[in-house]
């Protein structure tokens, strides 16, 4: 932890970069009691993820999953978004920085802009659309993408001709041509750097002819081509002639793993997976058969369940060709000829319609300069220098890093690191929680339950978005005729600040107790209007929204009369439903300010320690006598950091922290309660003493173990060992078994991984082999070391060690799953026979040691998983709530996971994930109370027959038959889907806010007059 002066500490944090990492860090911090300044140099937040079509390995639509996060960030009371802004300079130290930031002019006042889009409609000037990777054009007045936050336009003055048309049509008077750059100073306790990377520009390679051939595109351009919101509306077309391609090639490692042309020797860590994804999705988009071929060196599908994704792609018919293509030549008018050497050493040529360059990551020049201004050290590849045991801290105390500036990585790793960086910050500033945050003061709610409905209807013109198509005054007058309506009005922009203030006044003045707004979508605006109701002292559930824009004026613009008729129908439906809406009161439940951490390895200890440093109590439960877990068997990391010294220090810190209680030889034997209020029974110590722990959150860190091989003569000869057993020999160096005396060593990869029994890649074994091979070479440079592998998965910056190993003469020889090496006894010793892929013939080597890179398997957690009711996959690894955006949360709130219990990972990655879990847990605990109830299911016990249909149909296992022999639904656990309600044969469960009579009244109003 950084040395800081408490007196001057600040409760605010600066996050630089608003991609998915920056957003996650901001959300964690803002929800746990810090005021966050979120900076981005672009006019919107969202980063590179907003440009992706789908995301691997779930094939979720990227925009669908990121846009709720965008909205959450945009709405958060304690996140100030500073778009178009960069850091100019920094002064001070950890705990108390003064950061000068510079905001470029936007020429549109965000406070006034309602994002109605009129300015863009009239803008005559065009520019290259960088969001679509220059595949199409945009106006000079633009929004980067339709879901952009902040919701407001920008004028690109580089191309603006200053015609003044937008200024004339802007009814909100938001356009200011004279806008100027501004500077201000932000006082913050900590800085989190998440500026992201750029993608490699392939025009530097003349052999790929990227600039000359339009049908050679980058992978990011291809994402936009596939995207439904992209330049071709999701139709698979190639740029040259807008024809659908029938044959596409992907070339891997463009701008990565290359020291000749681009100097980026590292692996970009994500391209193998995105290429597979793009090939599979392209096949789905194609109308005819699409031939897809991926040209690669090693297929690096090392993440959780990535290998299965790769296997499925092969089944889908994606071709994988192990070769580095050296040139792209023209063929015919616009096709492309690839020349390459196949694995047998034969020269091949193939013609494709389109070529996708799988471009890697690169730290941008702007970021390099930013790091310099901040005094943050970068490594030779320009990634931030971090400590392997504190992977989110930069070289400057108080400045943390996450995302691709730390090293190339995918979205889940970035999200974990973001939460990890937030945890670092939170531990440092914990006593300053809630000192600079804002709270909203609301008037007391008026009880309207006994009043007859008095409905106010507010119809929005949305500039001319609605008013230009729908006859708004007619709709307004129609609303006046509907039952229970006591007030109607229409507004130019119902969402504008001044209208909101006035609406609250009108509600109070006219005694309105239900509100209907006929405007845009509840997705973006419901929360805002509900706040207006709260300001007027009315329960926020007494509100309904008629979407007469997205579901009407925007989609029926060619028939104004019918659009107006439909608007009336939609308003009538909303008014009918509103009349039946009930006040719902969310209850506040205290959250126990403590966490239970299960598993005392590196992950569990870091999680417990960070929770403690954040000011919470932590109980750490370890099944063994000693803390330390699997890391006790690892002497050094590949970076040559001393793991045992670190572990000793960590154990001491954990044991000496007043906020941490350690229970060893311990097992969870009972678990009940709900988020914020769990009660766990633990048996611990030699006598299995039973202890009850009450806690608000739980973190699962049960770890993994090394597979005990059944193959390759393991157990039959003491010369055959696993990597962890070799680690022990290397560490102890005892006479008789000193590895320094060996002359020939063979290491075999993927033992127990990537096979039928266990299709997962174990992620860490390639680096274990290279690490130990380098250590052996250090002991005896003359030693012959062979690493027999299937793909060397030295992802990210690990690639450097792979390069070093080859330079030092370590021999890498590849084998296929169906033709593995053979280990035989040879007199006293053993010999290994393998097929060499370069020599194309079998090679026999007598060896001193055979080292098996055995799989990493999940620890046995059957009983624990049953107690906690959290899911595991077929291989015993716990399943997170969402593979991409919630990598450390379980879907049941209040329970988190980290370390190898999630999937195999390096020590540094386990630490990051542990910090992330602690951040997520801390974010939950810091709220102190929890709102439960609202739109959830409730049982009318008078008709309950205890038939168990609700118990069996609930996807979350919430209903239970209680002591009175009737179904009971805990409102703190209910997710509000309504499945049980519709299944209940006695109709004795209702979903508040979507009760049967409310839904049916909606339907009834819809169909009024048809008979």
């Amino acid at each position, binding site marked *: 932890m950084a040395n800081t002066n408490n007196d001057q500490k600040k409760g605010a944090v600066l996050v630089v970069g608003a991609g998915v990492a920056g957003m996650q860090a901001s959300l964690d911090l803002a929800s746990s009691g810090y005021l966050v300044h979120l900076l981005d140099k672009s006019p919107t937040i969202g980063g590179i993820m907003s440009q992706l079509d789908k995301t691997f390995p779930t094939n979720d639509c990227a925009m669908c999953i990121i846009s709720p996060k965008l909205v959450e960030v945009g709405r958060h009371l304690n996140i100030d978004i500073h778009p178009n802004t960069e850091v100019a300079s920094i002064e001070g130290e950890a705990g108390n920085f003064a950061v000068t930031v510079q905001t470029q002019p936007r020429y549109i006042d965000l406070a006034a802009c309602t994002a109605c889009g009129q300015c863009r409609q009239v803008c005559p000037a065009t520019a290259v659309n960088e969001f679509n990777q220059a595949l199409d054009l945009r106006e000079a007045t633009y929004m980067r993408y339709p879901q952009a936050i902040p919701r407001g336009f920008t004028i690109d003055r580089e191309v603006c001709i200053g015609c003044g048309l937008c200024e004339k049509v802007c009814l909100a008077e938001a356009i200011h041509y004279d806008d100027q750059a501004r500077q201000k100073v932000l006082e913050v306790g900590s800085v989190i750097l998440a500026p992201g990377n750029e993608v490699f520009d392939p025009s530097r390679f003349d052999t790929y002819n990227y600039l000359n051939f339009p049908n050679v595109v980058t992978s990011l351009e291809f994402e936009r081509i596939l995207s*439904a919101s992209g330049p071709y509306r999701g139709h698979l077309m190639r740029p040259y002639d807008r024809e659908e391609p029938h044959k596409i090639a992907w070339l891997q490692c463009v701008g990565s793993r290359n020291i000749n042309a681009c100097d980026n020797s590292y692996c970009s860590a994500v391209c193998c997976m995105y290429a597979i994804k793009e090939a599979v999705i392209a096949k789905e988009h194609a109308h005819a058969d699409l031939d897809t071929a991926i040209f690669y060196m090693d297929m690096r599908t090392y993440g959780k369940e990535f290998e299965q994704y790769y296997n499925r792609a092969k089944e889908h018919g994606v071709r994988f060709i192990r070769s580095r293509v050296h040139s792209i030549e023209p063929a015919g008018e616009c096709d492309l000829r690839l020349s390459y050497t196949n694995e047998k050493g034969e020269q091949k040529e193939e013609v494709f319609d389109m070529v996708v360059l799988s471009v890697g990551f690169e730290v941008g020049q702007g970021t390099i300069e930013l790091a310099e201004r901040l005094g943050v050290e970068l490594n030779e590849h320009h990634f931030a220098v971090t400590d392997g045991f504190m992977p989110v801290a930069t070289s400057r105390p108080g400045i943390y890093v996450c995302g691709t500036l730390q090293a190339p990585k995918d979205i889940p790793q970035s999200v974990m690191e973001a939460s990890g960086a937030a945890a670092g910050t939170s531990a440092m500033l914990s006593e300053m929680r809630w000192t600079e945050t804002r709270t909203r003061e609301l008037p007391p709610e008026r009880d309207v339950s006994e009043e007859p409905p008095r409905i106010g209807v507010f119809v929005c013109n949305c500039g001319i978005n609605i008013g230009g198509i729908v006859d708004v005054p007619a709709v307004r007058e129609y609303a006046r005729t509907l039952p229970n309506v006591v007030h109607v009005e229409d507004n130019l922009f119902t969402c504008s600040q001044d209208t909101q203030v006035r609406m609250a006044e009108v509600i109070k003045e006219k005694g309105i107790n239900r509100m209907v707004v006929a405007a845009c979508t509840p997705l973006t605006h419901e929360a805002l209007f509900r706040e207006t109701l709260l300001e007027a002292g009315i329960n926020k559930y007494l509100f309904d929204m008629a979407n007469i824009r997205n579901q009407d004026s925007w989609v029926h613009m060619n028939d104004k009369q019918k659009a107006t008729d439909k608007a009336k129908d939609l308003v009538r439906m909303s008014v009918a439903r509103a009349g039946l809406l009930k006040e719902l009161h969310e209850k506040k439940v205290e959250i126990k300010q403590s966490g239970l951490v299960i598993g005392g390895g590196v992950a569990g200890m870091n999680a417990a320690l960070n929770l403690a440093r954040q000011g919470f109590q932590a109980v750490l439960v370890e099944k063994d006598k000693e803390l330390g877990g699997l890391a006790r068997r690892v002497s050094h990391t590949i970076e040559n950091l001393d793991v045992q010294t670190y572990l000793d220090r960590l154990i001491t810190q954990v044991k000496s922290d007043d906020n941490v209680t350690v229970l060893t030889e311990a097992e969870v034997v009972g678990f009940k309660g709900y988020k914020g209020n769990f009660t766990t029974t633990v048996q611990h110590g030699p006598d299995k003493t039973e202890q009850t722990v009450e806690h608000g959150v739980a973190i699962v860190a049960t770890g993994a173990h090394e597979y005990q091989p059944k193959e390759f003569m393991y157990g039959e000869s003491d010369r055959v060992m696993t990597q962890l057993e070799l680690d022990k020999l290397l560490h102890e160096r005892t006479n008789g078994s000193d590895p320094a005396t060996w002359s020939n060593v063979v290491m075999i990869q993927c033992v127990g991984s990537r096979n039928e029994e266990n299709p997962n890649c174990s992620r860490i074994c390639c680096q274990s082999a290279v690490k130990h091979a380098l250590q052996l070479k250090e002991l005896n440079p003359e030693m012959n070391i062979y690493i027999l592998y299937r793909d060397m998965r030295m992802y990210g910056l690990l690639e450097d060690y792979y390069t070093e190993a080859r330079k030092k003469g370590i021999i890498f020889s590849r084998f296929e799953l169906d033709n593995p090496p053979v280990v035989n006894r040879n007199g006293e010793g053993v010999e290994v026979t393998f097929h060499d892929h370069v020599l194309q013939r079998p090679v026999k080597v007598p060896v001193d040691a055979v080292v098996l890179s055995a799989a990493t398997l999940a620890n046995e957690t059957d009983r624990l998983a049953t107690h906690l009711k959290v899911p595991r996959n077929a291989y015993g690894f716990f399943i997170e709530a969402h593979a991409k955006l919630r990598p450390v949360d379980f879907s049941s709130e209040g329970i988190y996971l980290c370390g190898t219990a999630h999937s195999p990972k390096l020590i540094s990655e386990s630490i990051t994930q542990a910090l992330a879990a602690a951040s997520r847990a801390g974010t939950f605990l810091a709220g102190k109370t929890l709102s439960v109830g609202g739109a959830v299911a409730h049982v009318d016990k008078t008709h309950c027959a205890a038939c168990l249909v609700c118990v069996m149909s609930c996807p979350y296992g919430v209903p239970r038959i209680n002591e009175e022999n009737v179904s009971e639904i805990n409102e703190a656990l209910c997710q509000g889907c309504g499945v049980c309600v519709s299944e209940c044969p006695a109709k004795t469960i209702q979903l508040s806010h979507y009760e049967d009579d409310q839904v*049916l009244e909606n339907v009834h109003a*819809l169909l009024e007059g048809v008979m």
Partner: protein
Amino acid sequence: MRLNYPTNIKIVKLPCSGRVDILHLMKAMEEGADGVFVAGCLEGDCHYQAGNLRAKKRVAYVKEILDKIGVGGERVAMYNLSAGQGPRFAEIAREMTEKIKALGPSPIRIAKRKAAGRPTTEEAA
């Protein structure tokens, strides 16, 4: 995307297609709808885990009843699509409208209009 589709599609919002009750579908038909479709998440992608599969079963059940009583099960349908598939929504809306137009007004509606002494030939709502 502002993709055009017929105005006679009106949406009843529910938290999850798993909340769609057989009762809701039957009531809609009884009150004169010519067709109803349920739009749920893609299978395997339900926001609430498996509500869309429940909805699918209920829609199938309602189809069966409508077939039995002579109204025609093809008037109700289940569609699966994600929030990112705007064009697909517009396509479904058009497809469903075309299908219902070809089928003509629902026999329930015709019967009720007749009983009320109203003309039965106006355009399908």
